[in-house]
């Protein structure tokens, strides 16, 4: 087991490396540059511009810059922020670190039971009004863009009903609308999958065996079928978590939440490369962690894929 964990963590290295190279390259291809942004209305000051470039090492050739970045990274040094002069990147993102993954995890935890039960109910009542109704809701949940739904939710639940604050990040109540908004498309997606998988499982021979044994429908569905539905659902949980993490970028911007998502957006606009790089690496890392957890759970749910002992 511990050998397995080590192997998985080593497997993470090439993924992180690819993320680093791609983000570094993307930063260079995006128009605009950090020094121009930093100077703001002092844009014409050539002397100051050159001084800043030298200070941040931006006057050196790109490969040198990259090598330098890697060398520092290897020592655990993420560099200094461009936007907040002489503030280390770690300090910029430290307070925000857990906000995005927490929002995404909360949304996933909320979406899983709702999505799975909706999907299973739809499958059990296949081709009835209930099934059609659920499918309609799912299509709506999947196809309405999140930012549009966010505006609607703020209007209804924050402004009209006053159940939740409009924006900000001072109490747990500020998380209610963002988590709900993240969870809706995830739940809809999960429900659609659960419905499909359940319909398939109900056709299986072992379900017929369970019925032939005289098991009540409750056990046929919730014991013999559900677990078999959970196996493929688990597989997609990693992917869903990935979309949720990236979804926080939009949601945090809308609700003015100081999480990684919003800092990512801010740093991209400010051409604050070191911060952008760090956040992309973190997102990659979270994604890998979730997939690792999924793989471990996979082995618990399905004995056929137990991790080699």
């Amino acid at each position, binding site marked *: 087991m511990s050998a397995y964990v080590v192997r998985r963590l080593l497997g993470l290295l090439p993924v992180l490396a690819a993320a680093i190279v791609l983000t570094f390259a993307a930063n260079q291809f995006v128009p605009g540059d950090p020094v121009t942004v930093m100077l703001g209305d002092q844009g014409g000051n050539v002397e100051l511009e050159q001084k800043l470039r030298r200070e941040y090492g931006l006057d050196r050739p790109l490969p040198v810059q990259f090598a330098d970045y890697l060398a520092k990274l290897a020592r655990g040094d993420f560099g200094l922020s461009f936007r907040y002069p002489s503030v280390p990147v770690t300090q910029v993102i430290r307070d925000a670190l857990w906000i995005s993954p927490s929002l995404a995890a909360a949304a996933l935890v909320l979406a899983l039971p709702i999505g799975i039960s909706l999907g299973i109910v739809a499958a059990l009542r296949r081709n009835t009004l209930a099934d059609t109704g659920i499918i309609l809701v799912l299509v709506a949940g999947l196809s309405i863009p999140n930012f549009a739904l966010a505006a609607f939710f703020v209007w209804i639940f924050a402004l009209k009903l006053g159940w939740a604050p409009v924006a900000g990040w001072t109490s747990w109540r500020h998380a209610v609308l963002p988590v709900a908004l993240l969870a809706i498309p995830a739940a809809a997606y999960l429900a659609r999958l659960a419905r499909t998988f359940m319909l398939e499982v109900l056709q299986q021979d*072992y379900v*017929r065996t369970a019925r032939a044994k*005289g*098991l009540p429908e409750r056990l046929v569905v919730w014991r013999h079928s559900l677990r*078999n539905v959970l196996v493929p659902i688990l597989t997609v949980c990693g992917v869903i978590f990935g979309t949720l993490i990236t979804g926080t970028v939009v949601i945090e911007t809308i609700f003015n939440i100081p999480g990684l998502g919003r800092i990512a957006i801010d740093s991209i606009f400010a051409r604050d490369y070191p911060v952008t790089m760090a956040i992309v690496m973190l997102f990659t890392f979270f994604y890998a962690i979730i997939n690792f957890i999924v793989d471990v759970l996979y082995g618990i749910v399905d*004995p*056929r894929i137990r991790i080699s002992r």
Partner: protein
Amino acid sequence: MTAALELSRLSVSFPGQPDRLRVIEGIDLAVGPGEVVGLVGESGSGKSVTALAAMRLLPSVARIDAGAVHLGGRDIVGASRQELLRIRGAEIAMIFQEPMTSLNPLFRAGFQIGETLEVHLGLSRAEARRRAIELMRAVGIPAPEVRVDDYPHQLSGGMRQRVMIAMAMACRPKVLIADEPTTALDVTIQAQILQLMRRLREESGMGILLITHDLGVVAGMADRVVVMYAGMVMEEAPVRSLYAMPHHPYSRLLLKAIPRVRERADRLNQIAGTTPPASRFPSGCRFHPRCPDAIDRCRMELPPLETMPDGRKSRCWRTGEAGLPSMST
């Protein structure tokens, strides 16, 4: 003596265009206590639908249009869901063709056996497990104390079928329906499973309805044979007399289709044509388009399943005639 299982005039239909399709029609079939009845026919003849109807396990779109299913003297066609749950797995049990897919891959073998006991006899999980080990030993699974915790994928095909049998036997049912129980197994394993079923039948006195298209299996196992074709019973006879002298042309051709070592032929004997689907069952006798003995009457009128003086039954207008084309070798 009352039969353990008796189907009388059982008809089942499935949705179709424009009308519902009668997949089996007026099936009469009885299995006595301790008796093995072979139900024989080609794929699509309605064998499995008959079995599922006897278990009241037909898919929800299927409908029992007429007839009765007597289990220990009681008709279960009108039984409520609750009653059926009590009956299934306790009074009548079933094993299936595919031991590979008939067990749930996510639960331990012993648990799946014990589940039946928990549900029907109210045993605790621990008691059920202990009984499951005994049952596994009784069906010849070596080291059952270890195997009880195996998952299906850790067991071979033969072992899985033994687990299925242990599960079916758990509550000592009066009737066991075995739907092609050996078709998916190696020949040597086949023989072992049949031997096991024979032994359990003798020990428990349950009746077995053995569904198969393998006439060799029937010859070795069954006391009586029911031959089905296109959703109807064509012939019924004790196994020896059927093999010695089949009355129905279809039975004759079926038996002739078994290759024999002594008469090595250049071509294998086959029955011309294919089994019609339920949407295109022919008029008159359903076998007439493929029957070498067919006369005009066969095309027009459906022959009844007639009981002969010797107690055998055959559904053919020409039963008893000599020198028919199907009799030539």
